[in-house]
């Protein structure tokens, strides 16, 4: 009778778990585990590999924990005198074993971490027969501005890209620190005022993917989302054609409107000023106070870290 109770109990728990699993998982899509781009796929594989490797230690730990606490419980009537050794408190061999095994596993993970930090470095360009599409990204309060400098287009909160083509992002902000993340494509990176980060991604097939900011940047944070539209080359070219003929112009006046805190809908613009991005980045390097932050300074250029430092040096001297 008692045995049946255990079986029924286990069956009940299983039924509850399955029901809960169904309730949770219907309609769920795991962008990180079911990615649409090569970078994200490599990262997914890495995640699975590292989890499996660690289970080599974790599973024995759980087994021993359960087994020992059952076997050596004080209320166990079957324990013999030899099962209680209150003074046994060291064993060089055993201790060496559990310094050693985790060390070996961490060693393997360390090599993996080193190799993949380089192979999946966001700054590293993706090898392809096709030239990369250049896209400049600016995080604003609370919308994303995408600039296609070579195509003469700018968009807000929508990011059409051609499939199977590397995309090179240059990312900055004109807002509190934000972060650019398309989980289906991989790797997020911070977007910061006055600085340019770089990111290389690729979409393996067509589709619609969600993009987010992951860093809190004010009241409109939750609404600062965008959509990536991965299109076939033909569709993409067609879109470029329409967008370049758009009546909406992206110029200083439009930008001044955009930079004010607000939420925004998906829009396409014809890019009038191809150096807009450089000006946005440069304005933090050259203005001395927050008051002037709504004016784009002329003659800005994309700054790398060393340039940034020297610029700071210059105006800290000016400040004196």
């Amino acid at each position: 009778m008692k045995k049946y109770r255990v079986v029924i109990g286990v069956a009940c728990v299983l039924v509850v778990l399955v029901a809960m699993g169904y309730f949770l998982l219907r309609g769920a899509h795991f962008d990180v585990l079911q990615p649409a781009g090569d970078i994200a796929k490599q990262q997914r594989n890495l995640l699975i590999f590292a989890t499996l490797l660690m289970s080599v230690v974790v599973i024995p730990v759980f087994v021993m924990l359960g087994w020992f606490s059952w076997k050596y419980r004080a209320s166990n009537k079957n324990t013999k005198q030899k099962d209680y050794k209150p003074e046994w408190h060291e064993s060089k061999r055993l201790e060496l074993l559990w310094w050693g095994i985790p060390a070996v596993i961490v060693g393997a993970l360390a090599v993996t971490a080193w190799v993949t930090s380089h192979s999946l470095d966001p700054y590293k360009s993706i090898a392809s027969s096709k030239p990369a599409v250049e896209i400049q990204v600016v995080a604003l309060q609370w919308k994303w501005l995408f600039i296609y400098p070579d195509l003469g287009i700018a968009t807000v909160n929508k990011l059409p890209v051609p499939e199977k083509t590397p995309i090179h992002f240059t990312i900055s902000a004109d807002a509190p620190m934000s972060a650019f993340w398309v989980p289906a494509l991989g790797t997020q990176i911070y977007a910061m005022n006055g600085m340019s980060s770089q990111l290389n991604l690729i979409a393996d097939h067509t589709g619609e993917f969600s993009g987010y900011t992951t860093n809190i940047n004010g009241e409109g944070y939750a609404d600062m989302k965008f959509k990536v539209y991965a299109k076939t080359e033909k569709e993409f070219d067609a879109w470029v054609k329409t967008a370049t003929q758009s009546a909406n112009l992206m110029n200083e006046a439009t930008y001044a409107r955009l930079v004010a805190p607000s939420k925004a809908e998906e829009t396409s613009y014809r890019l009038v000023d191809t150096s807009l991005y450089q000006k946005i980045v440069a304005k933090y390097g050259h203005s001395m106070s927050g008051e002037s932050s709504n004016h784009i300074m002329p003659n800005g250029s994309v700054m790398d870290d060393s340039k940034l430092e020297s610029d700071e040096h210059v105006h800290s001297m000016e400040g004196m």
Partner: protein
Amino acid sequence: MSALLGRLDWSYLPSDPVTIGAAIGMPLALLFIVAAVTYYKKWKYLWKEWIITTDAKKIGVMYGIVAIVMLLRGGADALMLRAATALGGPGGTQLFDTDTFQQVFTAHGTIMIFFVGMGLMFALFNIAVPLMIGARDVAFPFLNSMSFWLFFAGMILVNAALIFGGFSNGGWLGYPPLTELQYNPGPGVDYWIWSLQIAGIGSLLSGVNFFATIIKCRAKGMNLMKMPIFVWSVLVTTVLIMISFPMLTASLGMLSLDRLAGMHFFTSDGGGNPMMYINLIWAWGHPEVYILVMPAFGIFSEVVATFAKKRLFGYKTMVIALIAIMFLSFVVWQHHFFTMGAGANVNAFFGIMTMVIAIPTGVKLFNWIFTMYKGRIDFKAPMVWFMCFALTFTIGGVTGVLMSIPAIDFQVHNSMFLVAHFHNVIIGGVLFGYIAGLTYWFPKIFGFRLHDGLGRWSSYFWVVGFMLAFLPLYALGLMGAVRRLDHYDDPAWIPFFVVSAVGVIVIGIGVALFVLQIVYSVWKRKTLKDTTGDPWDGRTLEWSVPSPAPHYNFAIDPVVSRIDEWWYQKQDGLQAPRAEDYKDIAVTKNTPLGFMIGMAAFVLGGALIWHIWWLAIISFIAIVLFAIARTMDDFTEHTIAAKDVMRMDMEARS
């Protein structure tokens, strides 16, 4: 007007209904307490026995009470957050506005880390450390009182924000430029800065105090390698506190200079650099999580050995592991922002250092497991808390190592996956550890045990609630849900957020059972009385004195010759003390100056938040004067005569 009251203004009264409720409720609760104390004529008792006390045990109890009250506040915040996200899906409703939501998660994080985590930690330091090393008190009892009141002052400021002015909306670490004047001119961020600044200085001073206590006040014969592991964990923790907390003070100091004096340390423009702040705050912040968790490791080392009735396995490796973690915790901070765009070499270095910490941590777990091996394990509540810890903390460790690989972190950073991870280690490690410690040492302070069954049931609800609340968050993170959202578009996320909210309710039942356990045990204190002073058949010195422990801790200075001295003394057979063993005891007199400095610091913080400059100057001068007054006092101790000690000891032992 503005010269007199700074920027204080009626417009800062709360307007959101949820906040108004809290803003009315909190003063009412306070009023109720004041009325109750007055009605029962307990003001004098409260003042003489608690507020001005320099007795570490009483200070520990006060830390504990504040921390548990703050746990309720932080828990209410958590419930609000998960209620909002459970209803925040497409077609749902918005429970309260986004700004409130952002203040609530900032307050939740700040309160849980600084006032619950640190509070419980210092509670247990104060309660257990002097007793475990055979000391009468901490090295600097006055400093200890002052540290507590600074902590208390910070706590009032956090909660005052709810009533007047609102709290920061910048997250618990307040990254600039969001927390700079440009984006956040109101008093919220200043509340956050000054409550942490004041409480942080209290923590730093406590760190110094306990380091000195352990180094200077150990019983005769207790060399470092004979100290209980909990004391070792406190020692390495205090080293971390002494090195890292000045960095917190400096980073908050620079941020406040940006905000008060228009400087440009961390602004986007004017030569400031927010990345510098992020580096500095995490150079403190990462050691901080080890500051919280290492004492929990120490507690479990005591708990497992005691309840397995077996000597702790691998004492030396435990010590080596603690020291290794201490060093490593200072070279991993950059893993909190792999996604800031540092080069591959930098990311890889910090990632590898991070995963290396898993080795000594794993060793500790193995040592605990092999302490259980061939023991006689009595599954009392503290031991059940250990089992809950071992389960949850291990999962948290695995996800932590996953995120230490930069290329994986790029895909889960700042997502719900991260939220699940750090709750996994902070609830599973820190909180479960401290609750185990509270249950374990409770009888030593109060003279009666906590009800065991209620404690165990509390842990079951906690651990099941934890799994329900946080495992769905891992899944959400992998679906692309980022942290700190109050509403979202994807209908597939709704059930996960609903399950998570249910989990928070189950945790809430666990918390309620924990509180009920305390209340019920106070009610049944006669049946739960600890008559022996050694309710768990303990191993270390604190169990050699009667419960509740007397003010002077040890009637006769203990002498130590081995690890687990008390356990072996019991096996050798205890001898009754002789009259000539009793000596005169000098104890530190009570003083109100610690309390007064704390209150002046509270006023100083409030004045700086509201830009009331004259009051800031006056309260600062007051702090300096109080400190000088203390240094002028040459008679800070009084002596208890040997015959009185003997009489009291005999009474307590009979």
